[in-house]
């Protein structure tokens, strides 16, 4: 449960920061922790933007904080905004423990003239980490696919936005399907699948410049790209002439290709373990789809890692390598589940009828996924402990296939 003050505050902030742009996302917390930390965020002095509101929204959205007036808060954030002579901006800010009077942070952040939102997200990350002792991912980005129009006349867009859904930009638009966006480990590139040539191909696109490379356009299926943690290789799914899907590994620089799985079943949806020593993937070699793990070398033998239920698919691994997120089907409902890779215990985290595409935030504390609500694709997040659920709603179009980008330097 989350209290009324937070709800009002979020509603107010949603109204203040909502911008009529393409598939802009709005955030709605649907559940939260029972005992959030009360914090007060004062408007920054001389701020021509709404930086303090962005900080408030981030902290409130985490579910770990409740934003209040200062006399009812344990912590206080104040700041001063200054334009610099070279056009950049500077924010001096302080975090105070109101119970002890202790200054916990007294820092200065500078940013480009358009970068006030990112500066605010970085302040929110600092405050979060200073108080809770763990990292947050406010100053990161997400990518997702947006679809407009009724079938069969649909338009597909690949969109990149800040992690709060603001600042969204269309980076690719097509009348043919776009799918499977995934970030390179350095956050510079997106890999994705496009059907623009009337067949499937995997592309890499440098996000800042739109430089584009078609990296796999073999006959048949080219799908499900996944970067190795060092960014030098892509795992991806290719089909044989008879239509058999297997996971392969493609060296990005040389184009050298290694077939990883060799089985007449569908083998797809690869995801690298963060240490690069294994790949998790979906296979229906046992009947229905289940998740397997294999070493990334030709001839390796996969072992099954999902056991509960008859449909477990689309694995993703937490940044610490200890949790497996995937989609599980139970009674016709598709939901996000998380499995402890140490003891094998499984928990269902989401509550939709048709949830898909879960992925971890770079700090590992949150998962983003796609859901369907009244026929509309929406994005949602859930904390890895299952306590905090949120919806991110787009103004227009179906949104789907979210991919959370890495920490930025």
């Amino acid at each position, binding site marked *: 449960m989350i209290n009324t003050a937070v709800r009002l505050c979020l509603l107010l902030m949603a109204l203040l920061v909502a911008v009529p742009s393409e598939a802009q996302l709005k955030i709605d917390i649907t559940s939260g922790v029972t005992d959030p930390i009360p914090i007060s965020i004062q408007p920054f002095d001389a701020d021509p933007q709404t930086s303090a509101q962005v900080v408030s929204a981030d902290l409130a959205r985490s579910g770990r904080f409740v934003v209040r007036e200062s006399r009812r808060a344990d912590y206080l954030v104040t700041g001063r905004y200054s334009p610099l002579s070279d056009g950049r901006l500077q924010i001096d800010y302080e975090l105070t423990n109101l119970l002890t009077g202790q200054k916990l942070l007294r820092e200065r952040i500078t940013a480009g003239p358009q970068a006030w939102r990112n500066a605010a997200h970085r302040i929110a990350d600092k405050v979060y980490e200073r108080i809770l002792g763990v990292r947050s991912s406010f100053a990161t980005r997400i990518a997702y696919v947006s679809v407009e129009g009724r079938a069969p006349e649909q338009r597909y867009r690949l969109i990149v936005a800040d992690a709060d859904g603001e600042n969204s930009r269309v*980076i690719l638009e097509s009348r043919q399907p776009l799918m499977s966006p995934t970030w390179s480990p350095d956050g510079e590139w997106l890999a994705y699948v496009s059907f623009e040539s009337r067949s499937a191909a995997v592309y890499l696109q440098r996000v800042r410049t739109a430089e584009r490379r078609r990296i796999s356009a073999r006959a048949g299926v080219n799908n499900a790209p996944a970067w190795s943690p060092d960014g030098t290789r892509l795992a991806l799914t290719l089909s044989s002439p008879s239509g058999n899907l297997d996971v392969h590994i493609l060296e990005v620089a040389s184009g050298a290709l290694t077939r990883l799985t060799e089985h007449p079943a569908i083998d797809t949806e690869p995801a690298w373990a963060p240490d690069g020593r294994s790949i998790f993937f979906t296979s229906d070699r046992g009947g229905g789809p289940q998740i397997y793990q294999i070493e990334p070398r030709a001839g390796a033998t996969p072992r099954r890692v999902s056991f509960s239920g008859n449909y477990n698919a689309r694995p993703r691994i937490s940044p610490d390598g200890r949790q497996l997120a995937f989609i599980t089907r139970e009674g016709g409902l598709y939901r996000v589940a998380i499995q402890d890779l140490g003891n094998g215990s499984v928990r269902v985290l989401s509550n939709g009828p048709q949830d898909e595409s879960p992925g971890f935030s770079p700090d590992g504390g949150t998962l983003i996924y796609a859901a369907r609500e009244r026929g509309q694709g929406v994005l949602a997040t859930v904390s890895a402990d299952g306590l905090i659920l949120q919806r991110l709603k787009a103004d227009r179009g179906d949104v789907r296939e979210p991919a959370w980008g890495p920490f930025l330097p």
Partner: protein
Amino acid sequence: MFKQFAVMVVATAFLAACSSPKKTSDADSMVGQTETRDDVTARADTSDDAASAGAVGDVGSTVVLPAELANRLVIYFPFDSDALSAADLELLAQHARFLNGRADLNLRLEGHTDERGTREYNIGLGERRAQAVRRALALQGVAESRLATVSYGEERPAMSGASEEVFAQNRRVELVYGIR
């Protein structure tokens, strides 16, 4: 001859919020780039085909199908299945006979699923359906080199919606004739 369609790449900046002035100048400039690709199978837009059932192809190179095949270009499937019914096999035998008498044509088999299940696994299921149709045609003597498959999974539904009727319409293989 070939229809073309454009894919627009909109270059924008995502480090708008970055502290480096160099990156910020990237952020402030918009770089546009347009790529054009040949739509070699002569169909940029499925609705054109649907609107002209039986007359498929480019301007100047229309394939006119016999009446009994003209609006029978879609094979439907049960949930989680790539099985062809006896009626499907009979229809595909008719298509095979037509193809065997028309060496100038080829056929593209587009496999689709309904929206349930994970997207990339559904690409696999759509491919299985397309391959089931390809095998049935090959067994009727159509050269494999004339049969191409593509799986769209759940990405290109025939109908929007989430009812069982809609799902049934979306679980399909579309037969798309083209000039070799």
